[in-house]
């Protein structure tokens, strides 16, 4: 098995002090693999994704990114890692309604210290590749849910992240669009990234290299 890009070691976490959603959870995610996180609602799948994506700090345990521990990293450093090493696709796309489609795709450029203009061509090419047919100047409120999710996928793929975390990326999509999104995630994994997908859809889980049930 290829070396782990991302690894959880004995993670303990709970939103309340006296309860733990995850209690000593460990798993490694190798480069070039696509993993499905499945299980009933309320088992902490999205929470685990936020922990792996360095948005939450575990109460105990460690998240290792490319061999380096992150639990003690400063907030600034964790933000930098999120911007540079991670790509995120959230359940509701989470786009900025006040900005254009193109601005949404290039949003993370600023967090990596880049100019949006430098990534314009790549952003347009990704939008084209994923069939976002609306003009790039249009606002997210003027596009369909499926198109919005594809825009969010373009945003996540723009920086070619080492780890791509997707939370129910096909939840609101029709079958055709869902297949397009999953194949894009698969393609990114084949390019050498670790892709982790939270999903309730068995057909999505089947297309992953492995399934972890919570």
């Amino acid at each position: 098995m290829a070396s782990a890009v991302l690894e959880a070691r004995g993670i303990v976490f709970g939103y309340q002090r006296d309860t733990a959603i995850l209690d000593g959870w460990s798993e490694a995610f190798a480069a070039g693999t696509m993993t499905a996180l499945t299980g009933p609602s309320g088992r902490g799948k999205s929470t685990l994704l936020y922990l792996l994506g360095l948005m939450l700090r575990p109460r105990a345990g460690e998240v290792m990114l490319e061999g380096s521990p992150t639990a003690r990293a400063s907030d600034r450093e964790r933000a930098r890692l999120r911007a540079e090493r991670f790509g995120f696709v959230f359940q509701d796309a989470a786009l900025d309604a006040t900005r254009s489609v193109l601005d949404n795709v290039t949003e993370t450029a600023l967090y990596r210290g880049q100019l949006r203009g430098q990534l314009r061509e790549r952003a347009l090419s990704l939008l084209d590749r994923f069939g976002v047919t609306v003009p790039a100047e249009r606002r997210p409120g003027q596009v369909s849910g499926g198109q919005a999710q594809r825009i969010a996928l373009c945003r996540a793929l723009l920086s070619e992240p080492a780890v791509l975390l997707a939370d129910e990326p096909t939840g609101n999509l029709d079958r055709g669009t869902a297949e397009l999104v999953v194949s894009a995630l698969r393609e990114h994994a084949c390019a050498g990234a670790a892709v982790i997908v939270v999903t309730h859809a068995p057909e999505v889980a089947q297309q992953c290299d492995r399934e972890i049930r919570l």
Partner: protein
Amino acid sequence: MIRLRALAGEALASAIAQPVASALTLLMVAGMVVAVMLTTGRTVGAEQRVLSSIDAAGTRSITIRAEDAAGLTSEVLDRLAGVDGIEWAGAFSSASDATNSAVPDGVRVAVRYAYGAQLERLGIPERSPAPGRLAYASAAALTQLGLPDAAGSVTLRSGASFGIGGALRTPDFLAAFEPLVLVPRDEASGVEPVNLLVVIARSPELVAPVAEAVVSVLAADDPGKVTMRTSEALAELRGLVQGQLGSFSRGLVLAVLALTAALVAVLLSGLVMMRRKDFGRRRALGASRGLIVALLLVQTAQLAVAGVVAGLIAACSVLLLSGDPVPRAEFSAALGVLAVAAATAAAAPPAVLASRRDPVRELRVP
């Protein structure tokens, strides 16, 4: 550098993407600038007019007249060089009658020898092309001498002649000695008798102490034959005008600034609450807290600058059209800097609030 450019571009794009909030911020700052300019600015403009009128009356001058027997010599200038608070000092001999050399029986004007450095303040060149042989005359003197082109020469009753080197700019403090003709004496030995000494204090409030210091270094043989006239009363009036208007203006400006800052803070706090999901998303995608704070501060500063420019243009237009005094550029610039600083400072607490939005919480709330 790229990061700064990206930040400025992002802040501007965010401002444009939120037209209502941006317009409100801009209008608040512009309104504040207009309010200050039309109240305090107008007062300051009027104050500057009054003060310049007082200054034109020679607020800072100290004039000493000495009779011949007083024994005052040009050496007094060397002693005055050691006195602090003096901007300029010049000494003048007693007047001698002179006429246009070409018209010996023409109108007589008074000629005085002038001692001291920086006589160029009077229109006399720093280096004379013919030292000791040139005289400089005021416009009134040239007219009386029949030398309107400042060309020709004058002859004293003693027979000494001086070519006219140019025209004098008669300052307020020598206006009483018109028509004025001066012969600069660059190489004074210090023993030349002088009958008139003019000292300009560096500021109106220094007139009284400088006058005391000048009296102490006069070293006249007979102090009883020396009289001094100062503009102390004018200086006091100047201080009174400046103090009264200044304190009124400061209070008003501070009140308007505080009100504007409070309004900006309230507006931005509301904006942050409305857009908390936006800030949560930014944090989730990798924006640091510092970047969020910087983004909001730069955005506010950009809007404040636009508001200041708009406010200044509007206020100056109103003042000019109504014929009211417009304050000096320094006042407008200071007001602009204060307005931008106040608005930006007021944006800091909401910006910090925005930077502390929990990304997970905001992403989970539908």
